[in-house]
């Protein structure tokens, strides 16, 4: 079976980190777009389709939580995995209450990251599938089918 790449948007102000992790994820068959700030993340989301955003919580300017709120407001179907360099998981939990899929502690195990990435991608696919089905039902009704 051919792996369908997950379209990942990797957001962190640490350029070296973004660069290395992008290379690894691409090597693992994902399609990665880098962004170095919350604003750049939102601009990118407007321009290209993305499945999962990997989002660092601590960034100068617009921080991860703020960015997350905007993502969920404007692109509710995009899944978000939070990255925290902090020992405290509070912010990560706050993020999950705001709709993030999951979080990872930095430095994270690559295997954990890819596992969570797949799970997030799966949730998004399933949600989109449900939406398609619902839309189909709607069309049938409108066309005067079974009520």
């Amino acid at each position: 079976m051919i792996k369908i790449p997950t379209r990942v948007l990797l957001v962190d102000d640490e350029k070296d980190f973004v660069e290395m992790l992008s290379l690894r994820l691409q090597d693992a068959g994902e399609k990665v777009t880098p962004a170095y700030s919350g604003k750049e993340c939102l601009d990118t989301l407007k321009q290209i389709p993305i499945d999962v955003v990997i989002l660092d919580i601590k960034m100068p300017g617009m921080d991860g939580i703020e960015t997350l709120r905007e993502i969920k407001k404007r692109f509710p179907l995009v899944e978000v995995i939070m990255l925290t360099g902090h020992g405290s998981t509070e912010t990560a939990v706050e993020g999950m209450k705001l709709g993030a899929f999951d979080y990872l502690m930095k430095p994270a195990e690559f295997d954990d990251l890819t596992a969570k990435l797949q799970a997030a991608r799966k949730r998004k696919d399933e949600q989109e599938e449900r939406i398609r089905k619902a839309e189909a039902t709607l069309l049938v009704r409108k066309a005067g089918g079974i009520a």
Partner: protein
Amino acid sequence: MEPIRILLVDDEEDFRQTVAKRLAKRGMHVRQASNGENCLSMLEKEPVDIVVLDVKMPGMDGIEALRHIKERHPRTQVIMLTGHACAQDGVEGIKRGAFDYLSKPIELEHLLTKINQAYDKIIREEEKEREAAFRASMEQQMIATERLASLGTLAAGVAHEINNPLAIIKESAGWILSILHKDELKDMPRRSDLELGLSKIQKGVERIRRITLQLLESVKQTDSLVSEVNPEELARETVDLVCKDASAKDVRIMIDSRPDVKRIWTDPYKLRQVLINLLTNAVYAAGPGGTVAVMIRPTNEGALITVQDTGQGIPRENLARIFEPFFSTKPPGEGTGLGLFVTRGIIEKLGGAINVKSEFGKGSAFEIRLPLHPEMEDMPDASDNPGAWLVNVEG
């Protein structure tokens, strides 16, 4: 109350005997000396509370004896007895540290009043000393606590900053390794050397990561989720978590509880973390063939959990230091020196106390005392120390 101990010093035998008898009748413990030298040697042997000291004596006179008494027995109070119309001697005595003086002939009631006043003064001074000692030890504790708190805050800040570049190193090493594993590089010369180097980098990264995580843990500001906990159940759960590791190391873990162990209100997650720390240490200390015992007992205040091992024990010189951050006797890479530091921080936040008993060569026992309810008012004032030791309780 203990009887007041008096030494009566006078060269006039009759006077001395009479006064001594009458003081003894009032429940005092009276001894006698006939001159200054005698007085001093008796004091050397057995201290008294109050010396009633005649000024005019052959040989060493009262003033001279007073000087020696004050020098060698600063806590002893002295009441001078002066001859009639010799008030000057009494004043001299007070200047040299006597409590007061009485002129002969004395009235017994008068002497009694003075003795009682002098005794009150002794008690007041003892209290003052105790208070000063208590305050000094409190201050020392505060300094130590504050030092650790600010050290912790600093360390956590550093840890946080280190995690970011550490993530870069980890990703880079991981990436290189994944490239080395590709088919196209299968026959690359000295591939195993590169892999060896990379594995060392990864091990080092893992070690740093453990340290930074524990540092962050040590000052972490988390809401305590307090709920009703059965200490025995929690202990059994925790033992289940570590028993695999223990049996791999050939260490037996036993649990000993009693039916009258009460449920306590505490944070089960944190308490489990503490028990895991202590059990892991105990398993390590016990070594192959050793035994670890977890004992749970009810106390008036709550519960007492003891984790005991049959290891080598902790040398006396290390006992005072084991709760300090970065103190470890494990070989480099095996211990971060933060486990017990974090453990104590948690227990204190939960309103409990931890202490250790150890006999060198026989093993150690860590005792955790936990209250029925965490006493929040006993927490250090959070406003003095923002963030560091704050506990918010919900639920």
